[in-house]
């Protein structure tokens, strides 16, 4: 193994998951408790709060890395993500960035990547206004602080939301906690169906730094299929097996298959789409998904506490509609590391292994002073999605050569594949 002859790191781990522990053991790392001196801490979201809390006063050393950013919820809580992306849009509009370009209907061309969404109860009145424009639309209600499909339901009449409207009036002065807050989003009622079934996409994105942004996309994402044939009929609104693709929900369906767990690789999706829809639209879809990820990360990069000890692996949930337009549904800070099938276990084991190779410098000991530029070999199944540092230096080179002034961060430079080959996925 490549790790032979490398220092034996001390690791702490809050989660008793085989895909984690096996990886650490395989490298000959030594387990310590989170209170001791560790080099690598795979912490739960709860422990992160303690590690970085002001009262704690704990200072991380140069040779320590940890798997969450202190305020990751800026991206992973549904309401905050929506807020941050909306603000990012406005900022770009103000800057006159080419990304803020709109079509003739006033919709963003590049930044319209999540369904129309409101916070409840805060945006109740805005929502009602929008609802009245298209009264027959279905909306999906999601509690902000919960994951894995818990507490989600669909509505298509305003009366179903009475509870939130009243509450909002009585509680205007106390800010509701994440528990009572919901986001309500336009339900995508023309999802792309494969074999008559609805699915969503789970992509894994690793971020090692927000300023400058350095992020990686795992090639081995997967589609999660509903076991029941999709049916947009409103009478079926209560049958969650039709609408929600979360494995934790689908597992309870009678049709759940334990061999594949309803999961299909992204490679299969690509083959299917190229075969049935053609290569150009497929490439466009995958490009848009990559851009969407980069934008969502850029949207929070200024509010995120960019602690140099942190890295984070996000689970991106994406829905694709019938016209091959991707929508960002939500981002998870602690994507499930439980394996439902054997190929799932292999995939997740490799995910963690590749992740460690990217996060730990080649010498084998964590070092926050490292420039966080792993070699191509170290990336394994991850592809570089975007490296702001490299992109900027590329841009400087280009500027020096062509003397052409460019505004904005110059992301569009990625259109020239040769130039940006190192800085983005292209």
């Amino acid at each position, binding site marked *: 193994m490549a790790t032979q002859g490398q220092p034996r790191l001390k690791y702490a781990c809050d989660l008793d998951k085989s895909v984690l522990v096996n990886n650490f053991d395989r490298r000959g790392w030594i387990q310590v408790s989170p209170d001791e001196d560790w080099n690598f801490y795979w912490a739960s979201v709860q422990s992160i709060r303690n590690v970085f809390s002001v009262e704690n006063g704990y200072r991380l050393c140069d040779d320590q890395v940890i798997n969450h950013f202190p305020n990751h919820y800026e991206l992973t809580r549904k309401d905050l993500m929506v807020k941050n992306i909306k603000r990012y849009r406005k900022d770009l509009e103000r800057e006159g960035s080419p990304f803020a370009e709109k079509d003739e209907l006033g919709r963003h061309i590049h930044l319209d990547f999540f369904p129309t969404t409101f916070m409840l109860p805060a945006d109740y009145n805005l929502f009602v206004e929008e609802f009245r424009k298209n009264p027959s639309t279905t909306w999906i209600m999601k509690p902000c602080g919960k994951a894995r499909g818990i507490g989600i339901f669909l509505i298509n009449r305003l009366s179903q939301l009475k509870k939130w409207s009243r509450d909002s009036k009585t509680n205007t002065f106390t800010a509701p906690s994440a528990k009572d807050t919901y986001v309500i989003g336009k339900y995508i009622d023309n999802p792309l169906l*494969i*074999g*008559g*079934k609805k699915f969503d996409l789970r992509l894994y994105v690793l971020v090692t730094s927000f300023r400058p942004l350095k992020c990686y996309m795992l090639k081995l994402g997967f589609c999660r*299929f509903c076991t*029941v*044939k999709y049916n947009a009929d409103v009478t079926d609104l209560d049958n969650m097996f039709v609408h929600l693709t979360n494995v934790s929900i689908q597992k309870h369906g009678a*049709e759940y*298959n334990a*061999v*594949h767990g*309803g*999961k*299909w*690789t992204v*490679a*299969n999706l690509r*083959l*299917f789409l*190229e*075969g*049935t829809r*053609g*290569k*150009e639209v*497929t490439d466009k879809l995958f490009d848009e998904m990559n851009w969407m990820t980069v934008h969502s990360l850029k949207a929070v990069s200024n509010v995120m506490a960019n602690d140099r000890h942190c890295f984070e692996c996000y689970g991106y949930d994406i829905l694709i509609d019938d016209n091959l337009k991707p929508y960002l549904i939500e981002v998870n800070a602690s994507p499930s590391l439980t394996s439902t*099938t054997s*190929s799932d276990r292999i995939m997740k084991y490799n995910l963690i292994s590749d992740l460690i190779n990217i996060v730990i410098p080649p010498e084998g000991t964590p070092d926050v002073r490292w420039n966080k530029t792993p070699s191509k070999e170290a990336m394994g199944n991850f592809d570089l999605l975007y490296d702001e540092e490299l992109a900027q230096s590329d841009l400087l080179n280009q500027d020096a050569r062509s003397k052409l002034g460019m505004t904005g961060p110059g992301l569009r430079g990625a259109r020239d594949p040769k130039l940006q080959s190192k800085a983005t996925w292209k």
Partner: protein
Amino acid sequence: MSSEDQLQVLVLDIYSQIKGTPLELELFKQAQIISQNPLLRSSELKQTVIETLSKKEHGTQLKNTVYKYLQKRPAVPHPKAGPEHLKEPLTYIRKAQSNWDKRIVKSLNSMCTELGVPLARKRSEKDQKEVIVHWGELGTAAPDLSAFRPVYAPKDFLEVLVGLRNPNAHSGEPSSFSSLWGIIQVPLRIRSIMELRLRFNEMSINQCQTGVDDNPDIPPELFDNDRSKLAKKVLNNKHSPLSQEFLKKGAPPGVRAELWKQTLGVDVDQIDQLYYEQLKSYVVQHDLLVDSLIYKDVKLTATNDDQYFVFEDYIYQVLFPFSRDTQVLDHFKHSSANPPKSYIRGKLGVEEFAVHYPPNGVIPFHGFAMYVAPLCYIYDDPVVLYYVFRELYMRYFFRLHQISSHPQSIVSLCLLFESLLQSQEPQLFLHLKTIQAQPLRIAFKWLIRAFSGYLDSEQVLLLWDRVLAYNSLEILAVLAVAIFSFRKTNLLQVGTASAAEGVLADITTLKVVPLIQLSLFST
């Protein structure tokens, strides 16, 4: 019969295929328009009409129809030979297939009696409605299948092939020099490695291929871009032989669907749509025992396959109508098998009351659904999927489960596999034979399913590209040999048959095109 007479027969036969089709009408109309030109001299009339027509779109269609006919036309037997020679010239093979046919029917009948289910029954009004409502999700409407079992598995069929003997061949002493190492002991004409190299010369290592040179790590300017451009030109040309030639180097995934349709001469028009609807209504009206067999097979194979489970319902939408499609019976004209017959109740043995059962004459076996599954990656419309599958079955796949002396029958493929492996990798063959791991016993399941379900789906499609391109299944045997060669080092280390099987249990990571190239062309 002189060659001129033969040509005459051929032309009449082709004409009978075109007669009454919209194509004929259109050609006739066009010819009339051309001949109405007042400047045309009557002496030049025929010449001009032919020349002008052949340049038009319908002229290409006519060419494609003739080409399709010629592609599927069986070798013409000696004029003195009896009509049965068209199906199978060798008596002992004919007998073997007929025994096999009988065995399957017997097994099917005993299943009927055992389970107390009829071969066919009319559905009640209510059930019919149910089928219509659930047409898109037939998987959830499956009956209780616990009592059903597949009529036969590839293993059973292999035993029959192993038992084949030519009564006229002198086998000599069992230990004699000339006896074959393998388990297929039928002397049939197969190609040598040199002949295969000539046959598949477009696949040689010095030629760029889709499946190798379109790898994302290779800059697309080198190969992929030009390939896609060429593909578009080929498609615009609408000429079957051209797209078939193009497929020799593989299809870029984005244009495969059209290339295959063009090569196979599948063009789904309104009549085809109606015909499919008709077949669908037969499914709705009657519940056949084979439906349960299809259900069972899909549930055992595709439903549990992490590449194909998504398409479960599509496979039913293809295989149920397929079992009702009497046009499938056509392929029995040049196949060694005969469609099984059943009799209307109470009229057993009375020929006037005989019907083919199932109506298409094909009794599915364990793994049959896998002939459909990879196609779901390229055809999203069940009707198009249906016709492409039907064409592939009637051209190629039926040969994989019938005993015949045809150069592409499963018997010949098995023999080709064994003799190639024996000549290419004698040490490996001897080793496996010594440890009682006959290579064919491992490779047979790959061959009979045309590798579907064993390779990654993209690789299956790349392989089938070449089947269509060369209009031949021989490439399957070549690939099987290539896989053995590729895993040779590991195979030489094992000491038991089960360990050898273990080495070859998972071949999903293999890339077929480079393997075939290496095996055929490296020296």
